[in-house]
């Protein structure tokens, strides 16, 4: 609802609508990031708050200079030189990449299947896919503990079917992490894929058939190609958060290499090392910057496309 009258003059209502969320986000989103950056450049001390230097604006310009002098890259040095962190990042990227691939492999048939069902049935199916997502994330991960634990249902089933003789330790393993991630993020993959596939024009496939293209080839050349924006959106929507996942590896994973979300948590809560935790966060953000910008571009393009 653009303001009336000549373009350029906005009513106070239109300005408020932009400014209010802007200010909120600036305070509670932008400023915190600057603070994280600042603390990543601080040193750890046993104090409250557990870092120096603390910015004291009352000390004026001299205070500012003193502040700048005491900034250090200790935190970042630790990240670079201690292999623990490097392995943590690599493990996170690995888990995220593999699980995204599996999510795609599983999610695409599901999304495609729903898109092919009778139109009246589709909203119901979509809601069924969304519903678990709207119940607690923690609960759903917890549900897998029930199944995967030593005396849990999966082992019961396997022993009962004589596939194994003794209970297998499913929990505290990478496998469990993968299962947990795939289970939790499936709706994030299925929904963008479905949204793209549902909009597809069936007559394009008919045209391909008319021009001599066999069904499987038409599927690849037409359907898959046209659904690539949905694939990209779903993949990014899963990959990026999984890199920083904490709950799933913490509850289902083992004590070998930790994922970066766990490392950050541990540094912060267990070691009380805020500067290092902040440095981890900053590095993680830089790592994810490119995919995030890519996702942003996709959103923008989708928004313009619908106009």
């Amino acid at each position, binding site marked *: *609802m653009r303001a009336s009258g000549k373009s350029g003059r906005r009513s106070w209502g239109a300005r408020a609508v932009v400014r209010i*969320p802007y200010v909120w986000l600036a305070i509670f989103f932008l400023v915190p990031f600057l603070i994280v950056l600042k603390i990543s450049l601080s040193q750890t001390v046993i104090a409250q*708050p557990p870092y120096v230097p603390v910015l004291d604006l009352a000390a004026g310009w001299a205070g500012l200079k003193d502040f700048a002098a005491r900034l250090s890259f200790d935190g970042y040095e630790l990240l670079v030189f201690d292999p623990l962190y490097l392995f943590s990042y690599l493990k996170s990227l690995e888990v995220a990449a593999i699980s995204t691939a599996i999510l795609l492999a599983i999610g695409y*048939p599901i999304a495609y299947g729903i898109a092919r069902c009778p139109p009246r049935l589709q*909203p119901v199916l979509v809601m069924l896919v969304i519903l678990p997502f709207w*119940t607690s994330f923690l609960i759903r991960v*917890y549900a897998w503990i029930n199944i995967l634990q030593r005396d849990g249902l999966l082992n019961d089933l396997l022993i009962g079917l004589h596939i194994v003789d003794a209970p297998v330790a499913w929990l505290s393993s990478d496998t469990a992490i993968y299962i947990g991630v795939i289970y939790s993020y499936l709706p994030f993959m299925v929904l963008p894929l479905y949204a793209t596939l549902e909009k597809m024009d069936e007559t394009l496939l008919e045209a391909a058939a008319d021009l001599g293209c066999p069904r499987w080839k038409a599927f690849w050349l037409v359907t898959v190609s046209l659904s690539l924006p949905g694939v990209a959106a779903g993949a990014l929507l899963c990959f990026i958060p999984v890199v*920083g996942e904490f709950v799933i590896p913490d509850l289902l994973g083992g004590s070998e290499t930790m994922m970066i979300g766990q490392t950050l948590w541990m540094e912060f809560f267990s070691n009380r090392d805020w500067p290092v935790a902040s440095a981890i966060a900053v590095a993680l953000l830089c790592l994810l910057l490119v995919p995030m910008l890519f996702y942003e571009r996709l959103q923008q393009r989708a928004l313009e496309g619908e106009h």
Partner: protein
Amino acid sequence: MRRGPSLFNVVSVALGLAFLYLPIAILVIYSFNASRLVTVWGGWSLTWYRALLSDRAMMEAAWASLRIAALSASAATVLGTCAAIALTRGGRFRGRLLFSGMVYAPLVMPEVITGLSLLLLFVAFNVDRGFWTIAIAHTTLTLCFVTVIVQARLVSFDRSLEEAAMDLGCPPLKTFLTITLPLIAPAIAAGWMLAFSLSLDDLVIASFTTGPGATTLPIRIYSEVRLGVKPEINAVCTIMIALVAIGTIAASLMAKRGAMRRERAALGAQV
């Protein structure tokens, strides 16, 4: 014209849904299991629900979670709707790129980063952490989801209805309130519900931004779960699932009725 689903399609969807619901179904069933062990079925019983009700800490955490969720969902809905309006109707205002970046980032950002940054903000400004800091954090996190939903609805909104209202003498602000808002209300409601469940469900950000005396349900569940599977947890989870399921179904039924009416109106205009 549309070929029906093949066997492969049906099987994929069925397997997918089974995969999604099986663990939940198991959880719900075992919350009624009289026996403590998962492997032994002791018959139907409500013991764990009773135990739950007498667990004061758990009940308080649940109540706190509900209050925080309602508060942050409402704030997020207002802010998110404003943001959606700004992005779809605001044209090219100054700082639009930064604005849309800030709005969409939480959608994909790992929660540990968001949680850490907010905690550091509160510490830097010496804000006492507890109920309100969690609420603020949740609002910030969930407002982007509200924006996405409301924006999708606004983009497909028929602008000629607004033009008709203005043509008949209704000033722009009034047009928005009497014509646009009622018609996008289902999307706003859906946004509120999503924000509510995300807040109710959040563990990471709440853990970072909480303070003494403010425990949320997920934090409580998490600390108990680390010590091993407890049947009371099954009961809590079942109740939460039931609440969310009922709420979601109710909301979507309302939304569907609204959508069907609109669809019939639109179809009729082409006759």
